[in-house]
């Protein structure tokens, strides 16, 4: 890494941060060490100053606690009325976020950053309300005390003995644009308390009085000052980096906090946070799930999950690693992510256990050379006392994550029963073989039993089988019989060996079993992903993608789902397609809208609107949110366990990618169509400009010659000129007719007037009309007997014939014959026009019917090249087919067929 100049990525990130800040509202926090230092007072004073600067300042919420000086400061402010929420029969007041967003002031004062909202509000916490205000571009003034900062939570606990429940993530504090420390020396604060100037809630009087000890206050003041100083320090660094003042570029620190399923986890995370903040480092929290750990009770796994969530809130990137070897996984991850500091708990194994079984810490120290390792000591009794902690954690598990699985417990007891039975059977077999076999071989019978139990029932039962086996073997087969004592010391070795082998087998088999289980889970997950991606790959429409996603999510998570997509103006709407049994109908569109706009999950089990019935996830393709997955979970655990969460994310991403693919291909299609339209327009323009100008030139020229004639022109010259004018005018007229016909056919203006017509009559009409153009050319008509009828628009079909005949006349020598063949088939009538000319250009037969195509460009025979395109449009409108080819004997043949799908009419008189 280069210490000389800023990392470009870092600079880019800073620019983005500044831009994001520009759009976002600015957050100013009035920060204090304890209640009563005068934060609200200072905040309102500042608000007054802003108002004096003619800024639009409103008060969203201010807790005056009845203090007169503070209340008087509210005078003159517009106050947003609070929202009244009925909570368990009591009418409670809450800050009205929606009213504030609607009012849209430039600055809003919202007191008590750490406040927890009553359930029923959009967010559980007020800081989340404030985030939304900031996102909306509104500046916010708020106040908070130091004890509410998440990372200081346990420090405060240690200082004051009070567990603060209402906490604010440090990120909120760190992202604040301004922090104003409201400081008051502890003595003055105590004086104010004595004077009754500090509001204290009645019920918590004693606890809070304990809190207001001078020692506590000094400690809290120190914390607040230090916190502020850290921030100033960070700002200073930022400033220096922004202005590139000195070579103070630090190698960026990356910290990894490793947690386990014990009570230390939460403290490790907080410690990691503090370390990361002071070093201004990126930090990660990893949980390595070994096969052993996968056997943990769901309560403990939920506790880990909760700690990971906490870490995310504190700004860490969390990861769950699934690996058989904990230290291996940590080292691998550290290398991948360039970690240079690892924080983990002190080893729990001590003494000989640590010496024999090893410890993760020791392995890390010996193998990870360039990584600093920080160990966090555990308070006494804590590490060992997992059970107690687990039970306290249980009360704080996620909503909905409380199901137990009794079937597994029953199965375990069954396993122990089987272990006893198998050992009994082994003993019986050994007893039968006792007289025929060596004692050492009888051991094998028992070990066979242990292997059997281990493969079927896992570690616990097989350990039981080993111990039971060794005891029974000793009791029954080793002299003295029916006693646990051993006469021959040789057998002691046998017994110990047997026990060790039994235990090792148990352990190995248990690991194999759980790895097989992990493998099968992974295999199933891969199968699910494969199945869905296969289905998605073959999907052609958005509806299909949505249906596939909904079905697969249902089969994987057992939930009922719906994917909601925005309409043209970005409003999330219910799809108007057929409902399938897996779809969910009760989605709250306003929640979905929120998720769509904020690109964050909401609903049950999340931090936004946890009271909602369903869970809402954004469907995100990496660039933008495409829609919202709404999912009514059958069981929240199946969605929020880390590996399941990852699976869900992958499924969502696949869905999003499929949606993007469809959209991109649709876009490409429409672009293609636009290009085609553009090409046509250009072709039309050039054709028209050429083909209209040429006859016009003749007409204008001839007419002016005639007009300016002063008797020089001979009568035959005059008639030549007149003929030229007439011919060119007719040519122009035909051209314009063709263009108009094509335009009308393209626009779909033409409605087919289909009726029954004798083919003979149509051909007759055409030939009569073309008589002048035929100039005595021979046209042979081959009609089958029985007068074929076609159901068609005669005017249009006549035009097709006229165009085809004119084409033939134009491109073939005058002495050759043109043949018209009519063939009646059961379901269609085929009409072919064959000439004896030079034939069609090879390989271009199908291009003939394209618009503006000309077999030979610009010559005396040039037209716009619309005639055949019109033919095709007419025939296709009739549901028929037209094509052209060269006859083997020479000349071209154009064939079109018209379907006769209706029964011909019945005549009344024969």
């Amino acid at each position: 890494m280069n210490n000389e100049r800023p990392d470009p990525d870092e600079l880019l990130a800073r620019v983005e941060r500044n831009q994001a800040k520009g759009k976002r509202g600015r957050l100013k926090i009035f920060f204090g060490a304890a209640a009563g230092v005068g934060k609200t007072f200072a905040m309102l004073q500042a608000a007054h100053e802003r108002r004096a600067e003619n800024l639009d300042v409103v008060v969203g919420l201010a807790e005056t606690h009845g203090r007169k000086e503070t209340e008087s400061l509210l005078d003159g402010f517009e106050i947003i009325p609070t929202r009244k929420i009925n909570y368990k029969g009591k009418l409670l007041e809450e800050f009205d976020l929606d009213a504030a967003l609607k009012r849209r002031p430039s600055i809003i004062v919202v007191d008590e950053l750490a406040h927890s909202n009553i359930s029923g509000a959009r967010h559980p916490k007020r800081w989340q309300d404030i985030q939304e205000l900031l996102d909306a571009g509104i500046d916010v003034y708020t106040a908070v005390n130091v004890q509410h900062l998440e990372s200081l939570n346990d420090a405060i606990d240690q200082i004051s003995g009070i567990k603060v429940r209402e906490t604010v993530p440090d990120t909120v504090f760190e992202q604040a644009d301004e922090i104003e420390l409201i400081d008051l020396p502890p003595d003055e604060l105590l004086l104010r308390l004595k004077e009754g100037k500090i509001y204290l809630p009645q019920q918590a009087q004693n606890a809070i009085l304990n809190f207001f000890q001078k020692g506590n206050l000094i400690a809290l003041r120190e914390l607040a000052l230090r916190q502020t100083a850290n921030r100033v320090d960070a700002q200073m660094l930022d400033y220096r980096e922004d202005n590139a003042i000195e070579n103070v570029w630090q190698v960026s620190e990356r910290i990894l906090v490793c947690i386990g399923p014990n009570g230390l986890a939460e403290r490790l995370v907080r410690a990691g946070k503090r370390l990361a903040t002071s070093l201004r480092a990126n930090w990660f929290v990893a949980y390595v799930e070994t096969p052993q750990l996968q056997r943990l009770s769901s309560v403990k796994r939920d506790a880990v999950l909760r700690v990971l969530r906490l870490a995310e809130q504190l700004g860490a990137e969390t990861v769950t690693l699934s690996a058989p070897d904990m230290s291996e996984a940590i080292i691998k991850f550290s290398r991948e992510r360039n970690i240079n500091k690892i924080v983990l708990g002190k080893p729990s194994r001590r003494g000989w256990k640590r010496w024999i079984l090893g410890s993760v810490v020791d392995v890390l120290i010996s193998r990870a050379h360039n990584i600093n390792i920080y160990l966090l000591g555990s308070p006494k009794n804590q590490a060992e006392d997992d059970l107690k902690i687990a039970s306290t954690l249980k009360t704080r598990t996620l909503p909905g994550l409380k199901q137990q699985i009794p079937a597994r417990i029953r199965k375990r007891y069954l396993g122990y029963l089987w272990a006893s039975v198998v050992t009994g059977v082994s003993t019986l077999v050994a007893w039968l073989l006792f007289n025929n076999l060596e004692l050492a071989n009888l051991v094998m019978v028992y070990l066979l039993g242990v292997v059997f139990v281990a493969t079927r029932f896992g570690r616990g039962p097989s350990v039981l089988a080993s111990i039971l086996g060794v005891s029974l073997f000793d009791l029954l087969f080793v002299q003295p019989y029916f006693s646990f004592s051993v006469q021959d010391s040789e057998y002691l070795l046998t017994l110990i060996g047997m026990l060790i082998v039994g235990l090792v087998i148990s352990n190995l088999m248990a690991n194999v079993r759980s790895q097989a289980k992990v493998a099968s889970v992974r295999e199933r997950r891969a199968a699910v992903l494969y199945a869905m991606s296969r289905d998605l790959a073959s999907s052609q429409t958005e509806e299909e993608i949505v249906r596939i996603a909904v079905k697969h999510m249902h089969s994987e998570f057992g939930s009922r789902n719906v994917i909601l997509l925005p309409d043209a103006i970005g409003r999330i709407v219910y799809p108007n397609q057929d409902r399938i049994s897996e779809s969910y109908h009760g989605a709250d569109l306003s929640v979905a809208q929120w998720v769509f706009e904020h690109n964050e999950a909401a609903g049950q089990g999340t931090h936004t609107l946890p009271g909602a019935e369903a869970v809402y996830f954004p469907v995100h393709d990496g660039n933008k949110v495409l829609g919202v997955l709404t999912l009514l979970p059958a069981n929240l655990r199946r969605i929020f366990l880390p590996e399941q969460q990852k699976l869900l994310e992958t499924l969502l991403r696949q869905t999003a990618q499929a949606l993007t693919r469809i959209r991109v291909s649709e876009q490409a299609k429409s672009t293609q169509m636009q290009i085609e339209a553009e090409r046509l327009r250009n072709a039309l323009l050039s054709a028209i400009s050429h083909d209209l100008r040429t006859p016009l030139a003749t007409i204008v020229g001839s007419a002016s010659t005639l007009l300016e004639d002063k008797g020089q022109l001979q009568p035959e010259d005059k008639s030549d000129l007149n003929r030229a004018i007439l011919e060119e005018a007719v040519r122009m007229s035909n051209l314009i007719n063709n263009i108009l016909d094509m335009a009308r056919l393209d626009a779909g203006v033409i409605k087919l007037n289909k009726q029954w017509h004798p083919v003979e009559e149509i051909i007759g009409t055409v030939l009569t009309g073309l008589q002048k153009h035929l100039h005595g050319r021979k046209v042979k008509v081959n009609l089958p007997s029985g007068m074929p009828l076609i159901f068609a628009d005669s005017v249009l079909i006549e035009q097709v014939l006229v165009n085809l005949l004119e084409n033939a006349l134009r491109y073939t020598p005058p002495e050759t014959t043109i043949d018209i063949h009519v063939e009646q088939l059961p379901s269609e009538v085929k009409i072919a026009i064959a000439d004896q000319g030079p034939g069609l250009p090879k390989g271009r037969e199908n291009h003939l019917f394209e618009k503006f195509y000309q077999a030979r460009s610009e010559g005396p025979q040039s037209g716009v090249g619309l005639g055949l395109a019109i033919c095709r449009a007419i025939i296709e409108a009739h549901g028929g087919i037209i094509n052209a080819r060269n006859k083997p004997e020479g000349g071209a043949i154009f064939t079109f067929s018209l379907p006769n799908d209706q029964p011909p009419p019945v005549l009344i008189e024969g």
Partner: protein
Amino acid sequence: MPVIVIIEDDPPIRRFLRTSLRTQDFAICEAATGKQGIIEAEVRKPDLVILDLGLPDMDGVEVINAIRAWSTVPIIILSARSNEENKIQALDAGADDYLTKPFGFGELLARIRVALRHSAQSGALTNSEVFNSGELTIDLHNRVVTVADKEIHLTPIQYRLLTVLIKYPGKVLTHQQILKEVWGPSYQENAHYLRIYMSQLRQKLEADPTQPKYLLTESGVGYRFKA
């Protein structure tokens, strides 16, 4: 000198008609609107009216209706291409013939002559016992049809159809008009009957039915017996 009233809003076309028709010894009156045209047709007592269907003030069919209220003067309509519906309406309302723009002068003159002859002849046909056109002879009294002196047997409907067509030789008859005269008012929708009988008639009367000499099809409009 026959008098022709031209009802047409486009001055160049009026000029072209006026100039060329005067050379053929016709007296010309012009009108640029439908209203004026109706007045001219009433006042001048013309021998023929040339009417453009696309007039600015009123529909051409209304002009025909107004004139037909008191006069049987032949009316030739001028119409834009691919407007069969409009042509049929005008013909059904009583127009005698039509020309599609653009048209040549020769064509126009031929139509005018046919129309004038037809108006002079009208009513004469019933008295004439034998109708003659080229090799085709129809003895109306004895109901005998011959082509090149060979007797042709026709069914009653075929015969009736033929007599309807020769009643107005050279005039365009719409499908509706023919259906009404041959089958009666209730068969107006069954144009395919007419087409099939026309085909049968051609098979019997024409040397080459695909290049007919007598029974011409007016595409999308109706039929005409070529005199």
